[in-house]
């Protein structure tokens, strides 16, 4: 079985797994218990809790990118679209909960009053129900991902073509959401939320609750993905990444596997968006750009592609850095982010998660054998590359 062996290399050995579980448990304990308790004591400010809530929902987005890019080799630039779709669906419920407390004191959202509507458009009506909104958070991005993925994978669009098409999809959706005619708030989007399930969103306790919910959802998603990886499904998934043609020739319907992963990732991103909106208090089409998708890819790349833990650390780490740097160095921040990205891609393909191992290799604890990165390329390509290197060296010696 040629598929199993290379894949087995990537599976964490039991000791590594034990370390990872330890790290996750420690982080979960700090994030879910220590921080909220300290917040209640007044040691940790409400602002910090709110900020961390944002980081955690970004971590969900990062996991969705990792599921696609890290584990299946599909670089989707549409994850920000699914993220903000979730935000929008939940946002519609939150907008309804404002009631007549808006600027215009009308029972419909302000921007509709502004556009000259006197009563609610029909598609807004069911969003009075929280359950319906949550169902939409899952259904709308899931359905979109299903249709788009079905078309894309059926015609075997892969690699960079898939990236380019998802980029175009995001672009098309964002220009649509920027229009007022869509009746979803135009370029201002939704903001000024007041209540969620009857709780006041401005209360620190509500924010703390949302923060804990986000943390729990993140933990559950992590466990789900970890479990998915250990199944046969996860194995095929990684086999698709490393050699799709071989998987096809072995009789697996690779397109179905990819479609499933794409839909699941879209839903995870969407849930992240739904949790992001009430904590940040605004959702608008600028969250829907390709740049945001790529930013999420940076988190994953910095954290460590295909490692599940890495993306979470990357999302939190890079965003923490961003919060600090945008205040301290507003002009240089983008250069720094871009530079970080170039450096990670060029010199640290395994991300920060691979740092301990690299250090170890550097100091010779485990010999000097070069670690094969998790982002392994198909062997055929490696062979071609070797051939070229040889050819080039022949040429140099000749010259």
């Amino acid at each position: 079985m040629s598929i199993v062996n290379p894949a087995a290399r990537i599976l964490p050995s039991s000791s590594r797994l034990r370390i990872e579980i330890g790290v996750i448990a420690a982080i979960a304990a700090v994030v879910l218990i220590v921080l909220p308790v300290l917040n209640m004591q007044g040691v940790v400010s409400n602002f910090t809790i709110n900020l961390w809530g944002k980081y955690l929902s970004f971590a969900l987005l990062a996991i969705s990118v990792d599921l696609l890019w890290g584990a299946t080799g599909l670089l989707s630039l549409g994850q920000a679209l699914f993220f903000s779709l979730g935000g929008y669906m939940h946002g519609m419920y939150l907008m309804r909960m404002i009631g007549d407390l808006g600027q215009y004191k009308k029972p419909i959202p302000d921007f509709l009053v502004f556009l000259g509507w006197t009563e609610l458009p029909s598609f807004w009506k069911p969003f009075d129900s929280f359950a319906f909104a949550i169902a939409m958070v899952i259904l709308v991005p899931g359905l979109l991902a299903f249709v788009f993925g079905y078309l894309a994978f059926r015609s075997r669009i892969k690699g960079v073509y898939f990236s380019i098409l998802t980029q175009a999809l995001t672009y098309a959706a964002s220009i649509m959401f920027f229009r007022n005619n869509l009746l979803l708030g135009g370029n201002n989007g939704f903001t000024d939320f007041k209540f969620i399930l009857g709780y006041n969103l401005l209360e620190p306790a509500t924010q703390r609750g949302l923060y804990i919910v986000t943390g729990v959802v993140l933990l559950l998603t992590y466990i789900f993905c970890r479990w998915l990886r250990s199944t046969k499904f996860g194995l095929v998934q990684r086999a698709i990444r490393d050699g799709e043609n071989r998987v096809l020739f072995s009789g697996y319907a690779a397109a179905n596997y990819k479609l499933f992963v794409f839909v699941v990732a879209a839903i995870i991103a969407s849930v992240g968006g739904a949790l992001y909106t009430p904590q940040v208090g605004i959702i608008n089409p600028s969250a829907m750009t390709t740049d945001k998708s790529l930013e999420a890819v940076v988190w994953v790349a910095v954290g460590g592609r295909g490692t599940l833990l890495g993306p979470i650390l990357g999302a939190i780490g890079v965003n923490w850095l961003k919060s600090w740097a945008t205040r301290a160095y507003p002009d240089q921040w983008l250069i720094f982010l871009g530079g970080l990205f170039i450096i990670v891609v060029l010199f640290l393909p395994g991300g920060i998660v691979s740092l301990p191992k690299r250090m170890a290799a550097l100091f010779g604890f485990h010999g000097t054998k070069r670690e094969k990165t998790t982002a392994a390329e198909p062997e055929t390509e490696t062979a071609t590359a070797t051939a070229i290197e040889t050819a080039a060296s022949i040429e140099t010696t000749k010259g």
Partner: protein
Amino acid sequence: MILRILHSTLPLIFFALAASAPAQTARETIASAALEGSVAKKRQLLDSLAGKGDPAIAGLFDAWRQDQLFIATAEDGAAVAVQLTGEPDADEKLNAISIATGEPLLDASGQPARFARSELKPVEHNALLRRSMKGVLDLVDLSSEDPDRRLKAVQTIGYSQDASKLPPLEKRLSVENNGRVRNALLEGIALIQLKDPSDETRLHALDTLRELATLGSFDSIRNARAEAETAGKAELAAAAEKAMRAVNTHRATVNLFGTMFRGLSLGSILLVVALGLAITFGLMGVINMAHGEMIAVGAYATYVTQCFFGSGVTLPFFGRSLPIPGMNLEGWGYNAYFVCALPVSFLAAALVGIGLERGIIRFLYRRPLESLLATWGVSLVLQQIFRLMFGANNVQVSSPSYLSGNWTINDIIFGWNRVFVILFAIMIVFGVWLALNRTPLGLLIRSVMQNRTMAACMGVRIERVNMLTFGLGSGLAGLAGAFLSQIGNVGPSLGQSYIVDSFMVVVVGGVGNIAGTVISAFGIGGVDQILQQYLPDWAPGLAGFPMIGSFLQNLAQDSAVFGKILVLVFIILFLQWRPAGIFVTRSRNLEG
């Protein structure tokens, strides 16, 4: 019939009256009107100016209405109408110019006389006089030397449908020899006649309008039809209906050709923008997300060149200001900047591209997805560098005179810059074809792209070829930037607005194929413009969709945006049918 005859004789009578007045220049007439005591006579004199094309009239009337006309006493004791102009000196005195002659008024010593406003009796004006003056002014341009001004005047008069303006228009028609103005006169007369009480005249006017079928007359014809319908005049309503149909047919033709032209020009823009990408992505397989920034480099290079030819500029260069000297050229010398900007922008972008290839991309040839990520990082860095170098706002790139302007042929507008882009696209595609197929470098490029390993074995220095190919692709992007600077804004995020489109063009065209890029660029441009033009017409049909009908209809109002989205949907469906684009490069390589 009697009315018709009366109508045609009226201008003759008018003409005879005007001719019987003593032959005076416009200035003399105004001067005597200013000196005249009775308002009725003043008006008569002023009205006699109607239809005279003397350019002095407008200025003098303005001066009159702004209380700059005064009555002075000349050497010989006679009253002279003067205009006080120039800067007042210490005694508040100004130069006095005789209205009748246009020369300065001389005092006893033969020196130009100077008066203060308070010394003289001002020439009064009231509402009646001002109305007379306005009536004359409306007609001044009618006799202007410049056909464009005449045209504009005729149109203004015609669309106002003022019956009192009919005689001068008819008078002008009898002497007009410029075809465009003649047509406008006919249209204007017909439009005024639509208000005529006689059915026959109106019928005749509608007939004329049907023959002329001008876009501007539509609303007036529709009003005429509505009036005819309320009055129950079936014949008139039918004639109006016919005229409206004629206008609509004409409008449809104009829209069709206009859409074709715009589609062609958008296609050319897409082609110019995507051609560089067709080389870097299509031939080399590098996903250059910084392609848009290469375009921006070209556009900024054009801006700097323009400033160098003009009066120079000081750039906010990373917080320190960097002055760029200017040659202060004017006229043709300044306009020539664009010709120089083309090679400059090509070289600037090519150099940045080569730097990028040497520094980053050459490590990633076998990792296309990673090259996408790294070049996105580069694009972020470059955008921020633009912001720090040139400021966050858009910079002003002016079009040289030979690129600003347009031809209007039969109501279809052809902008010169758009025509130029089409020609340029043709030239550049031909140039690229020559470079790839007729030069030694082109041969090397093609060999490396076909089979890297084999080319290397044959002694091709693939590193060098890669570098030059990437430089060529980036340089083409720079050229595109020079052209986009003539069409849109130049700012740090210029490239972002084109990157998605250019990738689409290359993907649809089929990777590694210039001919496919050309076809797909024009196809996407054409479809986009067709949708943009005709979607609003189709919008009512969308209401039939189950569930989301009204929603779609609502969206279709934003035809530009909805059109773009539909184009994308079409592209995705097209890729179902031809996953590798229009032209497929056949290869035995499974992974390739």
